[in-house]
């Protein structure tokens, strides 16, 4: 076997697998998004050209769901990174001597998001939940967590609390990776802690910070699990993220073509963003 | 059995020519050393012989058979890598047995051959240990054991001593030389250390920038270097080169009217070469050259003396360790006329 053929053989398992698992779905996505099809007529879609896309683009629900996901993604990523960074930097001295602290701190993110959502359902319950109970004791009043006004804040808080450990872990590792000599050189030059942090340590961790933000944004954007079990689409669609929108359109409204059209739009948007971000990163590296 | 030949071999990586038209022969049972500075292509040449790289043009022959297109295994050569490349997850036994098992040799025979090789290299007590539990010298012996167990036509060594400390190096050098006598196989050995080359080789190939500078026995290279590169590469301390001279039949004239008596030669040399041990000290009056001592390195048995000769520059002289020399001292130099080497403006040897 020549090296070239060898390479193809080595790559074959993954490539064949992905083509089978994702290749067909992509084709189906494209074909069906341009067709009128229901659960009964699954095998025989009727082409209706851009009608589904038209429906999606003209659906205010689609745009509010997209806006929700965007807001959610950016805000949670921001909050998680800031909190994670502060925790990592502030707690480093005691964590260095007590490594087991990391295990406890990352526990929230090991739990399935859906489980977290269910736990919060318990916590928020007006009769059985512990949170309203203690808020009554402390403040005499407890807000409606899942009302239309509060639900975004509630979901934002849940997500942030669960995933801050992720940012924390990343930043802790990056903070450790800063060469000790760099800090020593700056210290000898008389650099005070605040300047050291802002002008030396942060720049060193910059790639990690960007990466953490990016990853958390992606995960926040496509959030589904915890919202679904806690509130579903929510009062007046107030908690409909883009993923929930697509799910509801498919399973509840049973409008397959429309759901797929929305999926295709999402795919293209994600692909384009990734493409430009990769180009940007590659240009910055060289 | 075991003749290795390269014919007009060229190798390029992209637009960079790494090996330029190299031809050489390693005869059966010969210990051939490829030597040269870093980047001269000696390791690449070795890998071409092994089959780990393909030639860009030219051919490789083993026992008159053209092996240029053959995979490493089919060339029936063994290689000892610079970092030994021992499989860290296998024991010493496993490392040595690997090649035999790959060839599906039956287990009893594998066992016999592995123990035989281990015995030769005094590795038997370590057969069950993993490489990380061994010392550098022991690991090296395992690497050699792995090589000899296949009974190949020839051995290829890629700078095997560079990872050892000085004391171990001398001892292992002796072991390799003894191994050669015991096995009698063809060995091709790569090193940047000319002392290793001189002490181990039957034949030395000096390389520079991918080209062969000279091929010959150690004595040959030492006594008759074909060009200034070989002249200065072989032998330590380096040969003195007196450049910028004008040849006048039986003398070489340098700046400030300094002259050196020479023999008659065929050609027009402008560089004289003389080895430090071929210069002796004498009284300044009546000497060939007048010099002053710049610095003296005391080596115990020898003194390595740096002197300055007006009109010629700095020279290196080897003198007895019993001599007492002071910096700035004026001294005379006598040159052994028979040992003067002559080179032309291109650095090539001019014959007598």
């Amino acid at each position, binding site marked *: *076997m020549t090296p070239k053929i060898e390479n193809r053989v*080595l*790559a*074959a*398992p*993954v*490539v064949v697998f*992905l083509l089978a*698992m*994702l290749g067909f*779905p*992509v*084709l*189906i*996505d494209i074909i069906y998004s341009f067709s009128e099809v229901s659960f009964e007529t*699954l095998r025989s879609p009727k082409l209706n050209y851009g009608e589904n896309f038209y429906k999606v683009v003209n659906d205010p629900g689609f745009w509010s769901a997209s806006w929700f996901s965007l807001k959610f993604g950016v805000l949670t990523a921001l909050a998680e990174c800031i909190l994670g960074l502060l925790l990592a930097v*502030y*707690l480093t001295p*005691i964590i260095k001597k007590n490594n087991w602290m*990391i*295990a406890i*701190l990352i526990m*929230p993110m090991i*739990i*399935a*998001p*859906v*489980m977290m959502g*269910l736990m919060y359902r*318990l*916590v928020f319950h007006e009769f*059985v939940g*512990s949170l*309203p*109970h203690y808020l009554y004791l402390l403040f005499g009043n407890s807000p409606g967590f899942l009302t239309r006004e509060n639900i975004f804040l509630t979901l934002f808080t849940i997500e942030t609390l669960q995933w801050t450990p*992720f940012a924390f*872990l990343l930043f802790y590792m990056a903070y450790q990776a800063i060469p000790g000599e760099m800090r020593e050189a700056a210290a000898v030059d008389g650099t005070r802690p605040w300047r050291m942090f802002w002008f030396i340590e942060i720049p060193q961790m910059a790639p990690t910070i960007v*990466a953490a933000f990016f990853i958390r944004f*992606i995960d926040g954007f*496509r959030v589904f*699990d915890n919202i*679904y079990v806690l509130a579903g689409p929510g009062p007046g669609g107030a908690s409909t993220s883009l*993923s929930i929108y*697509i799910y509801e359109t498919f*399973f509840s409204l049973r409008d*397959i073509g429309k759901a*797929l059209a929305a*999926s295709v739009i999402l*795919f293209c948007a994600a692909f384009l963003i*990734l493409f430009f971000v990769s180009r940007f990163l590659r240009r910055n590296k060289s | 059995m075991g003749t290795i030949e390269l014919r007009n071999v060229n190798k390029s990586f992209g637009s960079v020519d790494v090996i330029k038209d190299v031809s050489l022969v390693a005869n059966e049972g010969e210990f051939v050393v490829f030597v040269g500075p870093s980047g001269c292509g000696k390791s690449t040449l070795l890998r071409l012989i092994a089959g*780990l790289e393909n030639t860009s043009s030219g051919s490789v022959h083993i026992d008159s058979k053209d092996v240029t297109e053959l995979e*490493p*295994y089919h060339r029936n050569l063994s290689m000892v*890598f610079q*970092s030994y*490349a021992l*499989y860290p*997850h296998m024991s010493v036994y496993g490392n040595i047995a*690997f090649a035999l098992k*790959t060839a599906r040799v039956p287990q009893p025979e594998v066992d016999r051959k592995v123990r035989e090789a281990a015995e030769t290299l005094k590795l038997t007590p370590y057969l069950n240990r993993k490489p990380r539990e061994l010392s550098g010298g022991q690991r090296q012996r395992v690497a050699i054991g792995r090589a000899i167990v296949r009974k190949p036509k020839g051995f290829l060594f890629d700078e095997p001593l560079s990872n050892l400390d000085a004391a171990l190096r001398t001892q292992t050098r002796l072991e390799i030389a003894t191994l050669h006598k015991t096995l009698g196989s063809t060995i091709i050995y790569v090193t940047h250390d000319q002392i290793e080359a001189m002490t181990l080789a039957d034949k030395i190939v000096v390389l520079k920038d991918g080209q062969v500078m000279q091929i010959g026995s150690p004595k040959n290279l030492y006594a008759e270097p074909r060009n200034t590169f070989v002249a200065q590469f072989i032998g330590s301390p380096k040969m003195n080169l007196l450049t910028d001279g004008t040849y006048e039949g039986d003398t070489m004239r340098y700046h400030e009217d300094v002259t050196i008596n020479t023999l008659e030669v065929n050609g027009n040399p402008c560089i004289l070469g003389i080895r430090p041990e071929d210069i002796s000290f004498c009284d300044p009056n009546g000497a060939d050259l007048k010099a002053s001592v710049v610095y003296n390195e005391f080596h115990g048995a020898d003194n390595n003396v740096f002197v300055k000769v007006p009109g010629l520059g700095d020279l290196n002289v080897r003198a007895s360790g019993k001599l007492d020399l002071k910096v700035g001292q004026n001294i005379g130099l006598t040159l052994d006329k028979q040992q003067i080497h002559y080179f032309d403006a291109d650095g090539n040897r001019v014959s007598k």
Partner: protein
Amino acid sequence: MKINYSNILRWLVFIVAVLVMNFPVISTISASLKTAAEISQSPSLLVHEPTLQNYFSIFEVSERLNIFAYLQNSLIASLIGSILPILLCFPLAYAVARRGYGTNLIFPTIVNLRAMPLIIFAIPLYMMYQTIGLLDTSLGLGLILVVVNLPLALLLLVNAINDVPYELDESARMDGARIFTILIKVVLPICLPTLATVFIFSFITAWNEFLFGLMLTTTNAMPMTVGASFFFSSGGGGIQWGVAAAVIIVASLPPVVLGVLMYKHISRPMIAGAVKG
């Protein structure tokens, strides 16, 4: 003994952070230990009459909750979703690491898959599975979990193989080994630690998956995550909060135990996924 005041403050911050972030977990554990009577009376975190009855109730297999089935389904799907990525990716990782094959197209495509919202494939996958009969099977679920874990597996394996000295490959070649012998007998054993890390991280990710479990299974292959959530949708008779809390705890245990024991192993995938991705 010198008291370090700034460190005391740090410890406080640590404790507060842990308590706040894990508040729902603590609540749930406390609820799971309460009798049905106590739950309706006292929603505080303190348990006056702790009981393990709720946990025992779970294991009485009922129509509403067949925990053994759910756990088994999760186990099978998660094992498929964590072992198969390694088997599929290892050969390709070798080609990428050693020969730079696919660095222009295949490798970036697979790694960037991580950033794709996979829900876009869920619907057509549903239809595909329905046609070929993979709907509501642990195998079907496991296969899509493989796709979820592929990108990180490939990234980590490429890094691991890059750390294996190339001279070992060449030495094996001189010893007569062909590509697959080199892969399996030389490179793979040295990469075992990374394989373990990838497996653990993939297993946790696969176990925690919800969306695909929700969409691609109904009765036979329902994983623990979906089963637990269905237990919450009250189907007549109201929710027994104590039992529900116990269900959540039991469902969350496997990944938590694995993660806490192996936290050193899963920090590396996080870093790699972040900085290189």
